């Protein structure tokens, strides 16, 4: 049962009637009784929202920043016409553009209602209820009912670092291309044998094969492939802090996506792990063909947890996943004692067997504060910022001294910086 503004308007017009014609309690009672009786008739004549059958189809996923469309099919199984308002309720961050539509549904017919979503945050967005308010023929009153029509749209991370991918792939081909010279060097491995052509380095002649074959045969080399790259995302409390306008974790996800896509194209074996005190995401053996799809799907629902990351346990997880020599990329934030107390003591166990890169999301606000001059407030803020920058620098030096490669950059610059560091390691054969 639901009333509309018309009932109130009718009762207000009735006030004139009462004042002019029947200024008594009986008059008030009579006018109000007529108004309520009309409303009651309207309720009885309104189509029942309960008799509606609803179902959905449409997009299951949407990249952040794009639009998803979810269609709602409404069929009226009741005997009376359903005329009124329909609300398809979504959480605020699903960004439903217009969640209220007018419906007019004669008995036995069906309509499609399209809801456009422009999500404002990554993650799963689950539809709430569909509520229908069906008004009677007079528009005075009606019935209202809700339906549960489950639907989930997974909002994928935007992968803004995507624009850095072509240039890094070109650089990768360059490293490959250097091997077109087919010289033996660091970061190369044996590829194949072929006949000697003039200009080849005589040092690469394979004498044993030459003896077997009859002609002169040289060995060729290519950049090392099939290396193991393990990307570890720290989803503990350091990843929750806001840098710029988004949590640190979002920058970490962008970094992981760019590095994963690049490494998979380079022919390396890529594993992904998100961890704080338990495994939040675990995507093993990413192929170049579906690396982005699988990573994006797994990372979309990742949320920062307000926990201290257990680095000791994380080390055990890493060691159990990467048996052979691997490149372990830990994406975290350097600005807390958590790293000093947690990561530093266990770093030695990792660097003993693996190449470790620590990618840290720096806060550009620190540089902004450190540049503050002019009045005492700004200078005190600059001193505080210098304090933190010195601490970060010292921590980075400590980590570097223990054998880790540290990349500390603001969110926008971190993904390409990590990709470049990876390419450098690859080019110099230190993977």
């Amino acid at each position, binding site marked *: 049962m639901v*009333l*509309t*503004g018309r*009932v*109130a*308007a009718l*009762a207000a017009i009735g*006030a004139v009637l*009462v*004042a*002019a014609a029947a*200024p*008594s309690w009986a008059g*008030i009672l009579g*006018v*109000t009784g007529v108004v309520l009786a009309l409303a009651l008739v309207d309720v009885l004549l309104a189509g029942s929202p309960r008799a*509606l059958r*609803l*179902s959905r189809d449409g997009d299951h996923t949407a990249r952040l920043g794009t639009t998803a469309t979810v269609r709602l099919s409404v069929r009226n199984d009741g005997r009376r016409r359903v005329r009124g308002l329909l*609300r398809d*309720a*979504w*959480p*605020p961050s699903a960004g439903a553009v217009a969640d209220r539509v007018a419906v007019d549904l004669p008995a036995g017919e069906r309509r499609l209602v399209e809801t456009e979503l422009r999500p404002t945050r990554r993650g799963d967005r689950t539809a*709430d209820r569909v*509520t229908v*308010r069906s008004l009677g023929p007079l528009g005075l009153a009606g019935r209202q*009912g*809700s*339906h*549960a*029509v489950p639907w989930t749209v997974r909002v994928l991370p935007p992968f803004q670092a995507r624009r850095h991918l072509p240039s890094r792939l070109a650089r990768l081909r360059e490293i490959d291309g250097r091997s077109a010279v087919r010289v033996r060097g660091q970061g190369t491995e044996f590829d194949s044998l072929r006949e000697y052509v003039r200009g080849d380095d005589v040092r690469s002649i394979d004498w044993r094969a030459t003896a077997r074959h009859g002609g002169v045969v040289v060995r060729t080399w290519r950049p090392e492939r099939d290396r193991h790259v393990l990307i570890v995302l720290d989803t503990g409390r350091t990843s*929750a*802090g*806001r840098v710029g306008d988004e949590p640190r974790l979002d920058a970490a996800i962008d970094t992981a996506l760019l590095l994963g896509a690049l490494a998979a194209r380079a022919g390396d074996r890529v594993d992904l792990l998100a961890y704080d005190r338990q495994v939040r995401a675990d995507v093993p053996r990413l192929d170049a063909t579906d690396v982005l799809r699988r990573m994006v799907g797994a990372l979309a629902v990742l949320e920062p947890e*307000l926990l201290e990351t257990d680095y000791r346990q994380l080390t055990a997880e890493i060691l159990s996943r990467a048996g052979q020599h691997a490149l372990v990329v830990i994406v975290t934030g350097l600005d807390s004692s958590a790293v000093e107390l947690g990561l530093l003591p266990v770093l030695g166990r990792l660097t003993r067997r693996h190449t470790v890169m620590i990618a840290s999301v720096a*806060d550009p*606000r620190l*540089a902004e*504060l*450190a540049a503050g*001059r002019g009045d*005492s*407030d700004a*200078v005190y*803020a*600059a*001193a*505080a*910022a210098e*304090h*933190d*920058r*010195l601490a970060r*620098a*010292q921590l980075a*030096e400590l980590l570097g001294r223990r054998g880790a490669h*540290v990349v*500390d950059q603001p969110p926008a610059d971190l993904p390409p*910086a990590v990709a470049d560091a990876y390419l450098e390691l690859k080019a110099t054969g230190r993977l």
Partner: protein
Amino acid sequence: MSTTTAPPESRPLDPTGADHWRRWRRPLTVVAFLLVTAVVLGIVQSQAGRGYLDPEGVDNPGARALATLLAEQGVDITSVRSNADAVAAAGPDDTVLVTVPDLLGPQQIDRLVDTGARLVLVAPELRVPDYAPGLSAALVDAPDAVQPDCGLPVAERAGTARLGGLGFSGDLSRSEGAACYPVDGEPALAVSSTESGGQVVLLGTAEPLTNEYLDDDGNAALALGLLGETRRLIWYRPIPEQGTDAPAAFTDELPGWVRAGAWQLAIAVALAAVWRARRLGRLVTEPLPVVVRASETTEGRARLYRRGRSREHAAGLLRAAAIRRLAASARLPGETGEPGADAVSALAATLAARTGRPAADIAALLTGPPPADDAALVRLADDLDDLENAGVPRDTGASPTGKDPRPS
């Protein structure tokens, strides 16, 4: 609610009539039980104690016995509670028994007196002069059996009666006044007249009228004599009433059509409230991400420095950062946060050679005493900037406070 269709087919969520019944039957049962209990208790209570001098009360302070006796004598008893009812019921040939005369305000007393009825007041104290001008009440001994000791026929007929508590003194000469049952020398029963000339009887205590003492001594005879004098008796048990002295509310002055229209408008407003109050479906909630900026701790530290005016600390930090950057640009060892004095003097010498400033000035800037006040601190920061801008080689030209020259 018989739909068991699996998703994606919809499922209506609104309760049916049966659901409402299932949900509300328990609370309704409880409410019904409470109501029945209250009604039963009320009936039981009404049989027992009803209050002081209640004509229906059967307990000790009640007066049912007296009311019954009066009715048998042919006296018509009208029980009233409000002043307006009492004034409306009383006439010049009636008796009004006021059980708590002090509860009435002066205007109410005036209205009652103006009816010209005969008044019987039970234990009046503060308002005695308003009823009977010239009289006043004083505390005397507690009620006990007393001799009438006067010429009032009713008292003489009744003889000894239980009176006391309050005595009345003053001029009784107006009309046929009488002073009976003296206690401590003051009459515990006084007869006088009101301003309008009606008789007024003042009783020092209610005890001769109550169920408890009615059958003692001459109490019953005295009570019947005092109250059975006229055909009609108005039994007025006052309740505290708002003094009607205030001017009538302005709404009473409005014409009837305005008031009726206003009531109807109020109904319209209530209907509008119902219209606006109903949501189209429930609110949808969702957990929100952390909104605290990562730099919050830095800004907190800055506020701490500022509040503590820790210039020495701030200057030390600014100098350490400058030394670090200068050492990096000068390719000198200065990597650790605490460079030794040697390293700083070497750095000062290098910078002096590069910028052409005296090495002593540079060393004083980098390691001098802490600034004396905030203005000096601001100047120090600017001086360090100047030094860095001069010390940074031309080709990089980067601002000292922009990009961190630390190799990554």
